[in-house]
């Protein structure tokens, strides 16, 4: 068992932004309030999946809604806790631990905030292993845990319990409620016991985010290339293969909005030489990277666009002509690459015609 302290939050936020693969929202504000909560309430215990008792009651937590709204309408102090308490009341059983449903972006740190407030441990794992746009794109759903009962909370202490059998339908109805709640709700759902969590979760993603953040930070201080440091660090984890797909400058960004998604394409030209440009297609998150006809990486493997010097991740909203970037591909762990997982969040789930090919099998 480890502990998370206020000093760890910057690394976790930076790592979570990398795992956001271009989406997931900026964890900056969540990081600020989480750091303050850890200062007020002391460190939070981080339980590995192997340390969780078989019969422990776990609920998973995060936010639903538009990240842009989150920059303006900050959460009320009790809002995220309200969702957990409402679900606990509905379950009729005390919650023993909380777990993030999404390791990438702004949803990564709120579980730590809730854990600090309620004096609970956080389970080191999640249901996405990165960022994805919709709730049914979770390993929890893929391997048989239902989203509902789910609690949604706004900042006034109002809570709503959803009992919807189908996760995709729950996502649809939940998003409708979220809009009435001001487009940013705290949610708690996917209640499960410890034994189930071991079977259905992407393991050790909180500690992975922290290690990614620490690797980049340490490399920056030492004056070595942070992307090299990151690739070396990943080799020792279940996100084993980190590949430098391309270094260049952004030559063109085309985007449009379709049904709440920022859909688009970015072209990255080489800084020197005449190598073919790298093209990345995104739908909030980066989905596929191609160089000419050659496939370089495809969802659910991670495609991260990083500032070429500092390795700061750049979200799809902030891509701009002229930025110098390194594109890093990272292999998703096996639990995210099974046939069932690929059906939920592989290329076809995003309307791509390509079949999934593992990053490390592509040349």
């Amino acid at each position: 068992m480890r502990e998370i302290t206020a000093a760890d939050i910057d690394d976790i936020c930076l790592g979570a932004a990398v795992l956001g693969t271009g989406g997931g929202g900026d964890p900056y504000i969540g990081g600020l309030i989480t750091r303050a909560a850890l200062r007020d309430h002391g460190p939070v215990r981080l339980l590995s999946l192997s340390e969780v008792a078989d019969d422990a009651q776990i609920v998973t937590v995060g936010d639903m809604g538009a990240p842009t709204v989150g920059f303006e309408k900050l959460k009320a102090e009790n809002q995220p806790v309200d969702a957990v308490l409402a679900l606990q009341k509905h379950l009729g059983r005390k919650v023993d631990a909380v777990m993030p449903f999404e390791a990438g972006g702004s949803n990564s740190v709120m579980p730590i905030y809730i854990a600090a407030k309620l004096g609970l441990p956080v389970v080191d794992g999640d249901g996405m292993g990165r960022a994805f746009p919709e709730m049914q794109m979770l390993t929890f759903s893929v391997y048989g845990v239902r989203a509902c009962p789910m609690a949604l909370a706004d900042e006034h202490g109002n809570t709503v319990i959803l009992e919807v059998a189908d996760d995709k339908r729950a996502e649809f109805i939940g998003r409708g409620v979220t809009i009435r709640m001001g487009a940013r709700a705290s949610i708690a759902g996917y209640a499960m016991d410890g034994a189930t969590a071991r079977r259905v979760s992407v393991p050790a993603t909180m500690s992975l985010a922290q290690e990614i953040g620490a690797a980049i930070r340490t490399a920056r201080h030492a004056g070595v290339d942070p992307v090299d440091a990151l690739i070396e660090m990943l080799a020792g984890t279940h996100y084993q293969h980190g590949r430098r797909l391309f270094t260049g400058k952004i030559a063109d960004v085309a985007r449009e909005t379709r049904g709440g998604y920022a859909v688009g394409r970015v072209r990255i030209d080489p800084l020197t030489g005449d190598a073919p440009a790298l093209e990345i297609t995104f739908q909030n998150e980066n989905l596929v990277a191609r160089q000419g006809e050659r496939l370089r990486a495809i969802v659910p493997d991670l495609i991260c666009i990083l500032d070429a010097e500092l390795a700061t991740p750049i979200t799809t909203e902030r891509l701009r002509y002229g930025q110098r970037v390194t594109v890093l591909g990272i292999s998703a762990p096996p639990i995210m690459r099974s046939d069932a997982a690929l059906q939920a969040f592989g290329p076809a789930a995003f309307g791509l015609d390509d079949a999934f090919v593992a990053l490390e099998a592509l040349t």
Partner: protein
Amino acid sequence: MSAGDHGDPAADRLAGRPDGGGAAGDGDGRGLEFDNRPIAALDEDAIADVARRAASDGITAFAVTGVFAALDGEMERRAGTIIAEHCPGARVSLSHEIGRVGLLERENATALNATLADLAETVVGGFQRAVAGLGVDAPLYLSQNDGTLMAADQALAYPVRTIASGPTNSMRGAALLSGLADALVVDIGGTTADVGLLIAGYPREAATTVELGGVRTNFRMPDVLSIGLGGGSRVADDGARIGPDSVGGDLQRQARVFGGETLTMTDIAVAAGLLQLGDATKVAELPAALVEAALDRARAMLDDALDRVRPSSRALPVVLVGGGAVLAARPLAAAASLHRPEHAAVANAVGAALAEVGGECERVFSLEQIDREAARAEAEREAVARAVAAGADAGDVRIADVEELPLTYMPGNATRFRVKAIGRPRA
């Protein structure tokens, strides 16, 4: 909404200051939802209470920040009125007059503005006395970060709006002097070269947050890239390295042409015959290869900066201004044409003299309820009305900029429009 200065720790942490620090306020999360519904009614008694307590503590500077106030400032204005009623002499900064969507950054910018209230009185008062002392009987305006003007009494209320007006004025001046409305501008001074983009005669504004001393803010600033290339920049490694350190204001003692020991870009310019300054014999012995290498390096630095600033790979006209403009002696890759207008050294003053009056509107529309063109037209109408209210000539107001930003992860196609209108001051 948060108002006042009571060191509330909850609000302190919101500010995200590196080490906590002093002020912030009493926060109760009032304001608007993204679609303009009020989150809750304004708690007028609570605000009056804060104002009375502040008055008895001798505090008179207030920062008022409401959720989504950038979309509709009415609730903040009402709070400001209540504060003024209960705290005599209160100087109230309203966030919607200062920043954009992004509560934390706007709140920080507003607090910064409130802390500058005393300084603004000293400075603006000084200007007013100086102008009166010269026997000039004319209204006094100050130039703002976005290139528009505000009356002196408004500058007293919103000092942060003036702090980045320097580069903006240079770029506006470059536009007039060169006759170009869309161009890249390079302003080379003693320490840095500032590179910016002119669109319709105005500098492009920074899209995201601007950090000031480690604090995130989001007030309207020109998007300028500064690189360490100026007349006082030190030259090292046989011309292969320029700056980022500079002798700055000490050029007339330290540069070689003035008898000093330091090799600066001014010395290179004199040695290359680009500039006549000081004693040219002091740099006559410089190896030609070093001089060439330094000018090549300057070009490479400018090429890189211009490429980062331009909006696409298309070449644009480049306007060179500032006292150090001679340092750009080589053809530049991003330049469709290179312009060195007359009087380029005083572009800054020219820019300030031709400033206009502006108004801005920022709103979120659901494009399922309103047609995109209609939404845009409504935002434009409101921006024009605000420009006229600020003193622009209604017959001359035009739309200078329209930005359309979709809210992601949301059904309903909620889209944020930001429109800026500008016109000549009314006679």
